[in-house]
């Protein structure tokens, strides 16, 4: 009983860690070469030297840009408690200029205990921001602007970026603009007037190396010995974990998974799944947990869709494939039906159904997104006449037919003939 409770607590702890990126990226940030150290140096120097700065953090989605930045900001806020205020914007939310200035004004008001007016206009808000920048500069206080999804701010007139960077040209202000983006060409998106005011400092975030990965796994999955967890349980858990981490089969599983995408967040998703499979009875992670998690997280949606189809729907797919092989440049439901009839006439299949039944099957396929209309506009035309296309390759279709439990032999034959 005590064991189960401890296991539950351990599971909660592990899940909590996996959902908290700042915990995950902690061990990757201690070396002087790491992005953490570089970023911290740049920001702290501009805080202490009271200068303006701008920097871009670039890297694929899920490589921990924001997490590392949050770690840095947390440390700096501890180091210089009254000298920094952070304004966080996200391109997903504030790509609209009006919204962005409003949000900046709101956060500035919250930071400095001022009254925020919802009714303030675009002009009021932007002037308020510039005034605040000047005030903070005079008080030797640095404002750090974090622009997440930086590339989205570069849409449209880029008024936000321009006024931010332009305000930083004066010596009175004291601000750091940090852009975070997964587009490596984010600085190329900027207008000339914005680009000339930008510092072009860039930090690249790369997926972890194999050694880092192993260190990371140990860091995330091992239990702390100095917590409320029973000590002997934690020791035993960690010992088993070390055994498993050293296991060649385990490494193989992890590497096959990381082949498709090597970023840390991708790994976290997998670990989350595996950890949720942990057996609460024994309370230990086992290799089986990871092995069952692998096929469950690496899904093949198109193949699943095909195996979900009914036999009539498979017939329609094969008919469409045949039409494509015949190099008919566009076809619709009617031509599929003539092909269907032709197959029926030549091979005398047992599955020949009425047109409206086929039409329903056709619409099911469209719902499954195995096929789609080639044009978006022909809404006033009925379904039968709108040209369609297949959304799966012939290889996928063939695989799907092979894995289908009771696929009619004739369909397999027809597909083989095409290939």
């Amino acid at each position, binding site marked *: 009983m005590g064991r189960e409770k401890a296991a539950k607590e351990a599971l909660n702890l592990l899940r909590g860690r*996996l*959902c*908290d990126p700042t915990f995950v990226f902690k061990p990757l940030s201690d070396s002087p070469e790491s992005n953490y150290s570089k970023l911290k140096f740049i920001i702290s120097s501009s805080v202490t030297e009271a200068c303006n700065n701008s920097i871009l953090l670039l890297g694929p989605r899920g490589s921990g840009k924001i997490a590392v930045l949050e770690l840095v900001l947390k440390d700096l806020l501890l180091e210089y408690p009254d000298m920094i205020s952070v304004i966080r914007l996200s391109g997903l939310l504030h790509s609209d200029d009006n919204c962005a200035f409003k949000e900046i004004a709101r956060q500035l008001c919250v930071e400095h205990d001022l009254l925020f007016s919802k009714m303030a206009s675009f002009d009021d808000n932007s002037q308020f921001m510039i005034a605040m920048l000047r005030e903070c500069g005079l008080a030797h206080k640095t404002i750090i602007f974090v622009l997440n999804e930086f590339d989205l701010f570069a849409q449209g007139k880029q008024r936000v970026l321009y006024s931010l960077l332009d305000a930083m040209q004066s010596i009175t202000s004291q601000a750091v603009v940090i852009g975070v983006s997964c587009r490596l060409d984010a600085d190329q998106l900027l207008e000339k007037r914005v680009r000339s005011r930008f510092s072009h400092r860039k930090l690249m975030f790369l997926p972890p190396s194999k050694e880092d990965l192993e260190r990371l796994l140990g860091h995330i999955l091992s239990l702390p010995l100095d917590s409320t967890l029973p000590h002997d349980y934690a020791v035993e858990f960690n010992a088993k974990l070390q055994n498993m981490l050293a296991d060649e089969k385990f490494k193989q599983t992890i590497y096959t998974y990381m082949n498709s995408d090597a970023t840390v967040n991708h790994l976290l*998703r997998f670990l989350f799944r595996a950890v949720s499979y942990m057996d609460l009875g024994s309370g230990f992670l086992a290799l089986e947990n990871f092995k069952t998690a692998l096929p469950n997280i690496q899904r093949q*949606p198109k193949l699943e869709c095909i195996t979900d189809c009914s*036999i009539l729907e498979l017939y329609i797919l094969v008919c469409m494939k045949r039409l494509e092989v015949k190099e008919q440049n566009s076809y619709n439901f009617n031509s599929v039906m003539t092909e269907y009839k032709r197959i029926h006439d030549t091979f005398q299949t047992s599955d020949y159904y*009425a047109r409206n039944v086929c039409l329903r099957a056709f619409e099911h396929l469209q*719902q499954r997104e195995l096929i789609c209309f080639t044009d978006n506009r022909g809404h006033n035309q*009925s379904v039968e006449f709108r040209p369609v296309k297949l959304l799966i390759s012939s290889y996928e279709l063939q695989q799907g037919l092979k894995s289908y439990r009771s696929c009619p032999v004739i369909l397999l034959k027809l597909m083989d003939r095409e290939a």
Partner: protein
Amino acid sequence: MGKEESPRITRRTTRSSCSTPVANNVVETMKTSDESLTTNDLVFGEDPITLDDLLSSFPSRRAQILELVRLLGPSNSPMLPLFIYGGPSTGKTSIILQTFRHLNRSFVYSSCLTCYSPRILFESILNQLMLHRKNAMNGYSSVKRCEKPADFVNFLREALSNVINNLMGNSGKLNTKRLVGQAHGNTVYLIFDNLELVRAWDKSSTILPFLFNLYDVLKMPELGLIFVSNTSPDTYYSSMGYIEPVPVYFPDYTEDDLRQIFMRNQANRKVYSSFLDVVLRPFCRITRRVDELSTAFAPLFAKYCEPLSDLGVVPREELKRRLFSHLQPHIASSLNEVFKISSQPSPEAESNKEMKQKGSRRRFAGCEEIDELDFHMSTSAKYLLISAFLASRNPATLDASLFDSMGGFDNRKRKRKSSQKSLEQKETAEQELLMKGPGTFPLERLLAIFQCITSVAEGSIDEEEQENEGLGVQRGDGGLMSDVLLQLSSLCNANFIIKGGSCPLEGSTRYRSTVSEEMVLKVARSLKFPLSKYLYRR
């Protein structure tokens, strides 16, 4: 059936929860509107069920339910966003809701089907979180007006932290004794159903990445996000890119699963099982969706039971065979029907239909052809339908030769030797016809053809014309025109003729006939109108 009609007002019902027996246990009394809501209203609102009940109420969904429970984890444990997907009527929504009933945790359910725009979606979530109910007192307004994701995030953060603090306070207070209906844990889950519809929204390119990134934006470990979608995660890929949620797949039911599902709640299991032996396999070749199959099975089962005098009987081999031979003629015809609405027919019509179906049984492979029209239509409407069909099918350039004073087109003239080239041409022309669908025509052309064919019909069949005099088939005068326009608009309403967009050159409205050739042939036959004479064959 009577049970389900009782006034059962629970906060959440799904399509299939009406049929789950567990849902019928509790009849929650309606909350009066002046009663203020508490955080306890964020749970399912009925007595929690055990895991065994949950598993047994959804046959052959054991693996998915266990997986969901595992991924949701013990109470108070953080969770990465989940993405539940699978075809329609595979039990996604029901299972997630019943799972929350089992776990008894707080959640906010919103379907993108009913919340059809970002604003309605956001406001619905906020209303539920802020325990606000629209009523006459507040003029059916939402608690917050919120259209932009930016505002939504601020409101949501505020509302969530309030709710979570409340839940924490509750659980701290009630550690000694647990109240009934009290939520377990302080995690709040947001469920977004029918997510695939968001892709069709105006602002889908910003809303979808926003929803998928909501967890990272809010950074609250006490928040769980669950997306439910008909389509697989790969259909959401865009140039934006996003962190994929953890996928949970609900496959379509297999034939054996379907048998288990249909066997539930059957009065006479033996009879139904022998019925399923007969029908399930052929129907599964067409569709494996529970909803479609159940609509197809209901009338068939009634047919199957017809020879039985006592419904409680245990069928033996010989009886099964008799029932099978009784049902067999109906299977083939109902396989070829999408859905049939049976109007209550008079006994004579019933027997009539019986005979007809026997006749049509042999040729079920094609379209079911019944010589008579199964609806009534005035003669002038029939002529109008035919002329619309002709206008759609025939090229306009041939009108003059088709409808000359002689009436009719001389087919003999067109006979030519079919060389290889002309055969090819014919094939491409056929292809084109299949692709293009019926052509469009202006109103003037329709009226001209209508005039021509009615005048011909008058000449040939005088007697019928006498009868139909009142119906507006009169020699060109003003009365006819107004009548015809009326008929035309009613044909448009009945969807026999589609009113298309206006022609860019002429600026007049163009029409298009949607009726099939078989149907027009039937209409023509009922009028004894020589349709084939006027039809241009390519």
